[in-house]
C-alpha cells in the first residue's frame, strides 16, 4: 500500500500569493515561509484531503495541463519531504 499523507491536525496556514511567490504564515510556530508556486500548490493539495504521491502527481499534472510522468513525480518528492520535515503533513498511518 503506497504511503499517503494528510495535513497534520492543528496546523493552520495563512497564505498569500503574488504571482511567482507564495508566502505562508504558520500559526503554531509563528514563522513565515516563502514557496514557489509548485510547492504552494502541493500543500494546497494536502489542505484539500490526503493524497498518495501518485495522486499528487496526477492532480498537479492535470492542473499544469500535462500528462503525469516521472519528471513531475520526481519534482514532487522533495517537496513532500520538506513538508514532512516541517511537520505540516503526516502519514495517514500516524
Amino acid at each position, binding site marked *: 500500500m503506497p504511503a499517503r499523507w494528510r495535513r497534520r491536525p492543528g496546523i493552520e496556514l495563512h497564505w498569500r500569493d503574488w504571482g511567482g511567490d507564495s508566502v505562508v504564515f504558520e500559526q503554531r510556530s509563528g514563522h513565515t515561509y516563502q514557496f514557489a508556486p509548485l510547492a504552494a500548490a502541493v500543500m*494546497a493539495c494536502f489542505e484539500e*484531503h*490526503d493524497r498518495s504521491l501518485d495522486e499528487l502527481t496526477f492532480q498537479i499534472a492535470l492542473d499544469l495541463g500535462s500528462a503525469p510522468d516521472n519528471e513531475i513525480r520526481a*519534482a514532487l518528492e522533495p517537496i513532500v519531504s*520538506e513538508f514532512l520535515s516541517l511537520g505540516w503533513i503526516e502519514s495517514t498511518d500516524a
Partner: protein
Amino acid sequence: MSTSHHPQDEQSPAPTAGLESAARRRALLKGLGKGAALAGSAVPLSSLATGGQRPGMRLKKTDGNYYYCSVSGNGSIMLSAGTSTPPTCVGKACSYYKKDWYGKFSTWPKNVSGQYVCIVGSNGYPPTTRFCDIFIGGTTKTIGDCVNTASPDDNSHWVTAMLNATVCASTFPYTTTEVLALYNDSTQRTAAITFFKNYMATA
C-alpha cells in the same frame, strides 16, 4: 487513480476550506506550464536570499513589505516575524548607477587612479567594458550602456548587482565574485536575477 474523501470530524478541514485550497491550487498553476513549474521548484531560493555571510538579514521586497530571512534546515526560506529588527539587506536600483548630469558614472566605485570602474574580484572594469567580457556569453553592449537606460533589462540588473556588491558591501548579501558565480551557474542564474530584481534593488 482515485482520490479519497474522509468523513468529517473536528480535525479534518472544513468543506469550504478544501474548496478554497482547490481554487488556490488551480490559480497557482494556471498558465504556468510544466517546464516553468518544475524549474522554479528546483532552485532553492534560500541559497540566494541568505548568500554570503549574512543569514538572518531583513529583506525589503518591491511590494514594500519587509521580510526577515534565515535558512531553514530544509533549504526553504524561513521568514520570521521576530521582535528584533536586524539590519536591512538591500542594494541600489539600476537607476542609481546611470550617468550623472555631467555624463559621468560618478556613483560607481573608483580605482586607485580615480577612474570609475565596476569591480569584480581584484579587477576593475571601466564602463566601456563589454558585458560579455565579464559575464561570459552575454550581450556585447557595454556595462555602462546596460545601466544607463530608462528600461533596464536582466543585463542591467546583473551589472547593478555587481556594482551593489561593492557600493553596498555592508548590506548586500553577495561579494562580486559570488555574483559572477551565480551568473555562471546555469542552474542558479534565473532565480538569482529574479532575487536581485525583486529584493535587492529597493534602496
